């Protein structure tokens, strides 16, 4: 029964994708939508295939991936450290938790023009926007994980003679781990999206830069091929990170 309904869900999801693809094919038949605005599926997929099988996209891909990894690492290290420091004191949690949550609700992309002035058109401004956006879910989840560990666990560990270090490694960390991991997953994914967005606004290289310059040259089929590539990448990143998260949580149970 359950696996049957699971199959039905998958079929519906596949069906929706097929409907979109069909509409795309139908809409771009000769005499319908201008192929400069929306090229038919066939040349787009041909271009997508070229991107997968040649090295032409590698320089831009490398730029984007490097920005993304750098931004994520900075956000992860700073977010986890700051979250840990804040979680050490109940007073600090009361002060900074709502403050950070409030700042999180500001659309950080508005800072991008400022970052362009600060860090220039190169990777610096993309790393800055990626870091800013990824930082908040990571720090907030670290606080949520560490500051709200069940008191009963702490009391039990104390009664068994845990010192501070043992308390942290054997109780606080594993108790907080699933929640921190969720923050890291969110940060990882939205950092990628923010960097792509930043590149399309203003940049010298990268996937987003490629897409914008192809659009400006009216190379629509190539542009959509690149967009497909970016979508596929985001999809894979999401899948991999969610898999890692699920594995990590299973290990801790």
């Amino acid at each position, binding site marked *: 029964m359950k696996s049957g309904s699971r199959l039905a869900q998958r079929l519906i999801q596949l069906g929706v994708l097929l409907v979109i693809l069909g509409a795309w094919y139908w809409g771009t038949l000769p005499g319908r939508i201008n192929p400069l605005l929306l090229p038919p599926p066939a040349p787009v997929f041909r271009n997508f295939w070229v991107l997968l099988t040649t090295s032409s996209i590698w320089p831009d891909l490398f730029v984007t991936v490097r920005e993304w990894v750098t931004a994520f690492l900075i956000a992860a290290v700073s977010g986890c450290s700051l979250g840990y420091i804040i979680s050490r004191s109940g007073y600090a949690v009361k002060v900074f938790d709502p403050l950070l949550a409030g700042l999180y609700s500001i659309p950080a992309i508005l800072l991008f023009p400022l970052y362009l002035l600060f860090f220039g058109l190169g990777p610096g401004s993309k790393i800055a926007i990626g870091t800013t956006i990824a930082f908040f879910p990571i720090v907030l989840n670290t606080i949520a994980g560490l500051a709200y560990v069940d008191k009963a666990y702490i*009391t039990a560990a*104390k*009664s068994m*003679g845990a010192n501070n270090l*043992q308390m942290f490694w054997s109780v606080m960390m594993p108790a907080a781990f699933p929640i921190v991991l969720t923050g890291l997953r969110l940060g990882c994914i939205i950092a990628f999206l923010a960097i792509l967005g930043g590149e399309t606004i203003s940049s010298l290289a990268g996937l987003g830069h490629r897409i914008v310059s192809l659009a400006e040259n009216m190379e629509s089929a190539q542009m959509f091929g690149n967009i497909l590539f970016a979508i596929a990448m985001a999809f894979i990143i999401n899948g991999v990170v969610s898999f890692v998260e699920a594995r990590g949580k299973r290990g801790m149970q």
Partner: protein
Amino acid sequence: MSRAETVIRVEGVSQAFGAPGDPRRVVALESASLDITRGELLCLIGPSGCGKSTLLNIIGGLAAPSTGTVTIDGQPVRGPSPQKVAFVFQENTLFPWRTIIDNVKLGMAFQGVAKSERDERAFESLKAVGLADFTNHYPSQLSGGMKQRAQLARALGLQTEILLMDEPFAALDEQTRMVLGEDLSVLLARTGKTIIFVTHSLVEAVFLADRVAVLTARPGKIKKIIHVEEGHPRKSSFMTSPKLTALRNELYALLHDEIRKTMSQRGETSEGA
């Protein structure tokens, strides 16, 4: 009880929450004094909120009293003393991310027990509580009764002389707690540990204890101590004996007024008597 040797001495222990003069100030315990002799099982019983658990936490060094002292083997208690005292808590405090045996071994690891010895001790104590076949299960895979057995195994594995049990069976159904109570009596008769056992259940108190200390309504004081002259391990026939019933009735009479007092304290907002 001919050569009674005092292990734990509680002298004039009071515990208050909130500053003096604060209308919300609660005096949980008031000059409680108690001597616990080596190898005995003492039950603390009293109305809700009378400070039974507070007293237990103070004895175990998890809380500091406002006034008064607790000594174990003549040494004043200033914090947890895991070499001497192990706890079993009411709520499930097994770590859900560790298997049962890893839970049992953790406290030993905290205290620097050698790795090879940990395995052996953990398995022995799990066997003693009847969980030898569940060593690699996670707590979420066990029933409530089994979780409490595992908690007991964790405490036993620490090989302390003193065991402090804070309503360990309170969250279980009556049938499960009857069986656990019988098993506990058998197990503890073998180990010869000194035990303080907090409970709400009159029958449980009489069935398990050598002595039952009855606490008054808040602020908690020791009202009376009842002796249960019956060898360990207690058999299930003791459960239905007239002796147990008579002691239970005596306890009930002692507690009845205190429970009433507690109820009226809750009904009124004034400071009360």
